[in-house]
């Protein structure tokens, strides 16, 4: 068995599902049902979070191995098993999911008024799928969870979304599905060659270099859409704009990380040569994402769209960091994903706070919010600054490590990555100015009330985390130190030329 003494990962994964089932069977008057559904969902997600904290305390940080491993034969004839486990790269993502879900439920407490029961059930299913995704050690299971995430998210956008929700939901669904179909083909191919879908066994077996490029591209299609990388990013702003606040939070906080995590978990170890070969392509796309989408963000008049574009730019830093293949870059990328998970979630929550009051995402409808909502202004400022990667906040650590590691590859790559520093400051502070500063001219703004206790409760953990991750990131970096080191080692051994490339760079 594992360090916890019981199948903890399965429990964390399927407890929300059980909660969803319970909610689905609640019957009675609509008001009572809604209230019961909310409380059941909240308690389920809180208990799940509590359980997942065991991972935080019992995880052995010095080991790069999979921990809390569970394995059940599923289709033994086909080499398919139900395998769960977490290593340093995934454990914190599990915690991110279990942390954000209760916050999302809190954030949709009053703002979701119709079909509350279905909404809460959808959220719990979503949580189960996300946690399962990060725990899966079997490729088929990985794929199943990857797809399973789509359904509740599709419903959340399509049912509880804004005016153009159907368009956005379909765009989201089709984009991601198109990508993952290619991945499915690649998975079948891998299974056909090796006869198993166990990820570790596949990595062990290796893939012949001549297939690597195509397989890499197939996986890339799925992950690049999820990240999203330029130019397949346009589903994201639409999805964000139409999604309810909590949907945006999960979308930005966790769903985007499925892609980045996929690169780290599968693309790099399975196809090292192809990764190395295609790294320049990824760098180009990443730098374009950073610069181009930052520009696009500047032109936005919709708060959510602006933050959505800023997410694309920040995820560009992540993909760039991953494909530098060195310790700083990979650590920075993983850290940046976690940091972005906290910060962009918090920013969407901030927008949600305003949206709940004014029912508009139009920046021009605001102005002078700081005057009437001072506490909110502080929180919003903190997360704006975090998004700008101010040192002392979480994002800085990630961006700093990625820029440092990009410098190892090329000066101009580092320059491209760092350009985001200027542009993010421009669009973020301009947004803040237009929303929070200025004179209060509208009665709707004058009548605003500052944050409610429930909103304080939602933001408190995020505020704490963003500062903790910024000031003492060691608590988090130490989780994946060993895993990243072994990943880098593995990659360099596989590429072989790693040392040669390095020598070339130094000689230049």
């Amino acid at each position: 068995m594992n360090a916890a003494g019981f199948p903890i990962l399965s429990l964390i994964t399927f407890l929300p599902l059980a909660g969803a089932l319970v909610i689905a069977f609640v019957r009675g008057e609509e008001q009572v049902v809604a209230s019961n559904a909310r409380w059941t969902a909240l308690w389920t997600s809180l208990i799940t979070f509590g359980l997942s904290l065991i991972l935080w305390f019992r995880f052995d940080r010095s080991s790069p191995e999979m921990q809390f491993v569970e394995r059940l034969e599923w289709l033994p004839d086909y080499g398919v098993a139900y395998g769960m486990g977490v290593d340093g790269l995934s454990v914190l993502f599990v915690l991110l999911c279990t942390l954000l879900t209760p916050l999302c439920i809190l954030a949709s407490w009053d703002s979701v008024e119709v079909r509350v029961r279905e909404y809460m059930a959808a959220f719990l299913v979503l949580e189960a799928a996300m946690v399962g995704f990060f725990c899966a050690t079997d490729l088929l299971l990985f794929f199943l969870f990857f797809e399973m995430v789509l359904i509740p998210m599709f419903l959340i956008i399509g049912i509880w979304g804004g005016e153009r929700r159907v368009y956005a939901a379909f765009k989201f669904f089709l984009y991601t599905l198109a990508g993952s179909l290619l991945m499915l083909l690649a998975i079948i191919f891998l299974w056909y060659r090796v006869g198993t879908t166990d990820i570790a066994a596949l990595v062990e077996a290796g893939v012949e270099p001549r297939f690597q490029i195509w397989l890499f591209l197939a996986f890339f299609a799925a992950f690049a859409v999820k990240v999203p990388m330029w130019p397949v990013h346009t589903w994201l702003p639409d999805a964000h704009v139409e999604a309810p606040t909590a949907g945006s939070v999960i979308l930005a906080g966790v769903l985007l990380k499925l892609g980045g995590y996929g690169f780290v978990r599968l693309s790099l170890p399975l196809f090292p040569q192809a990764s190395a070969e295609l790294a320049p392509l990824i760098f180009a796309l990443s730098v374009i994402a950073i610069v181009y989408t930052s520009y696009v963000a500047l032109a936005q008049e919709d708060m959510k769209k602006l933050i959505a574009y800023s997410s694309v730019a920040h995820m560009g830093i992540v993909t760039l960091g991953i494909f530098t293949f060195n310790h700083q870059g990979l650590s920075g990328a993983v850290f940046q994903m976690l940091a972005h998970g906290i910060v962009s979630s918090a920013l969407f929550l901030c927008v949600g706070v305003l949206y709940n009051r004014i029912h508009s995402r139009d920046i021009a409808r605001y102005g002078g919010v700081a005057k009437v909502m001072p506490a909110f202004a502080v929180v919003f400022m903190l997360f704006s600054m975090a998004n700008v990667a101010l040192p002392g906040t979480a994002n800085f650590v990630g961006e700093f490590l990625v820029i440092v590691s990009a410098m190892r590859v090329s000066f101009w790559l580092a320059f491209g990555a760092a350009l985001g520093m200027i542009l993010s400051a421009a669009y973020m502070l301009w947004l803040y100015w237009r929303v929070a500063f200025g004179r209060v001219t509208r009665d709707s703004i004058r009548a605003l009330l500052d944050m409610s206790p429930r909103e304080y409760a939602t933001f408190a953990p995020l505020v704490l985390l963003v500062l903790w991750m910024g000031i003492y990131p060691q608590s988090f970096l130490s989780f994946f130190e060993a895993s990243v080191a072994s990943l880098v080692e593995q990659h360099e051994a596989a590429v072989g030329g790693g040392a040669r490339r390095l020598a070339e760079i130094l000689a230049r």
Partner: protein
Amino acid sequence: MYVGAVFFPLLGACISGFLGRWTGPVAARWTTVVCMALAAVCGVTAFIAVAFGHEPTTVPITTWIAAGGLEVSWALRYDTLSAVMVGMVTFISFLIHLYSVGYMAHDPTQPRFFAYLSLFTFMMLMLVTADNLVQLFFGWEGVGLASYLLIGYWYERESANAAALKAFVVNRVGDLCFMLGVALTFWTFGSLEFASIFGAVDQHLSDRFLGVPVLELIAVLLFLGACGKSAQIGLHTWLPDAMEGPTPVSALIHAATMVTAGVFLVARMSPLFEYAPNALAIVTVVGAVTAFFAATVGCVQNDIKRIIAYSTCSQLGYMFFAAGVGAYQVAMFHLFTHAFFKALLFLGAGSVIHAMSDEQDIRKMGGIWTKIPVTYAVMWVGSLALAGIPIFAGYYSKDAILEVAFASHSATGMLAFALGLAAAFLTAFYSWRLLILVFHGEPRADHEVMEHVHESPLVMLVPLLVLAAGAVVTGYLFSPFFIGEAWQAFWAGSIHNAPDNHILHDMHEVPAWVPLAPTVAGIAGIALAYILYMFAPGVPARLAASFRGLYLFLLNKWYFDELYSAVFVRPTLALSRLAFRVGDQRIIDGVPNGAAVLAVDAARGAARIQSGRVANYAFTMIIGLVLFVSLIFLGTAR
């Protein structure tokens, strides 16, 4: 003591910022003042212990970032260089907190103001006590944040918000270069701790990167970062606009402390800059041009704070070219004295503005010197120090700067000397133009304002008097240690001079006219100001009319803002709209949307085929059959 000097301001900021709403403004502001007083006691004690007791020390706190070989820690490094800054920053910050108690007395959101001010001080102290480049960057960005918040303190004014945004973004341009410099430093030295970098400089003298010596590249990148923070020409445009903030802020941040961070950085990295001669030449030229440029612009401005802001810009230029010729000690000395007299001038200006019912245009002042005699006197002291008149603080440091520029015997050094001398003349001229227009002549304000002109309360005058005393004595008292015979013992190696750099010795061997020149230039500038504005007040207007082109060029600050607006700001916004409307909405979204439309059309078309009419089906079958058969024939024919 070492920890207290840095963290007391943070404590004050937290108490005032988070609890200020409950404690009320009075308790909040006095809490921060008391915390600053404690910090100042600690800071000055630390300065004495480290600089005169020769006990450099490093207080480790904890690890910050460790990933692979990259390790960065939180620590407080106290050597003479940082101790000088800590002592100066805590002391001046305390005085400015005290002054603000009077100046901001009628402001409704004081806890916020004092929290920002203390937060700034904390960040500045983190910057100067950093023992690695990343912590320095933490402080660097932290002071940027505090500066942004304080410039935009009156956030209901659109101009204040614009200035705050501009300050942050322009600084970020410099920070980008700083960041790249840090990254390059890591791959060159394998460490970001100062001690390990400085110890390994001589192993990397011949390393090259992108075809240039790596040390040169690092030095240039770091210097570009310094240009942003210290408002050197090209990246200076944010500083004059930053005067939108309350006046004590201008005194603390945009005169005495934050803007000097760039100079501090160059001095801190002196072991590296010393081996990057081309980078130093760039530093010299940029500094000299800035000193001259800002002084010319200062001569024609009409806003009392903007004149002093350009003066700051110009004085920072002096510090840079002093560092550029290798005399970091002299640069630090000017930084030190400048902090006193420039803070004095700003606070004096604040006192004037306070007295004139928030008027800042010097054309609407005049004739008030009898009504606010103390302010008048301290403004005189500050101006004398700024102009470099003997026995005042500025005399010792500015003279030394021009001497080292001359003594460097390089082309860039001579350029700096010439421009510096011209700037010294202009400095004296605009200082006295300001003094005369503000205090003398006929009152040009309306009657109501003049009725209200009053001397500031004691809580504002005490800091002014203390700073005035500093502006008189710091030069005389400290010059033996900073640049005089005791400099080696005083700096104790915290600033590095290459073995062949004897500039501090050579500066005493310049021709006899060199030390006299700045004083003469200063007196000439004062005399000219008296002639033009006191005795022949019609002349400036006539001069402006006859040299209209030059006048407008200067009045519009060499058209930097217009240029940047045309080259950067507007194209950026246009490009961003283009990227969104055309790039994203038309092209990128056009493909899937187009595909969707096609799919729908195709589906409609397919639906139309299934019309249910037998004739249609038969026709389709025949067409299909023909196509099929012809394909088979084509296949066999080959």
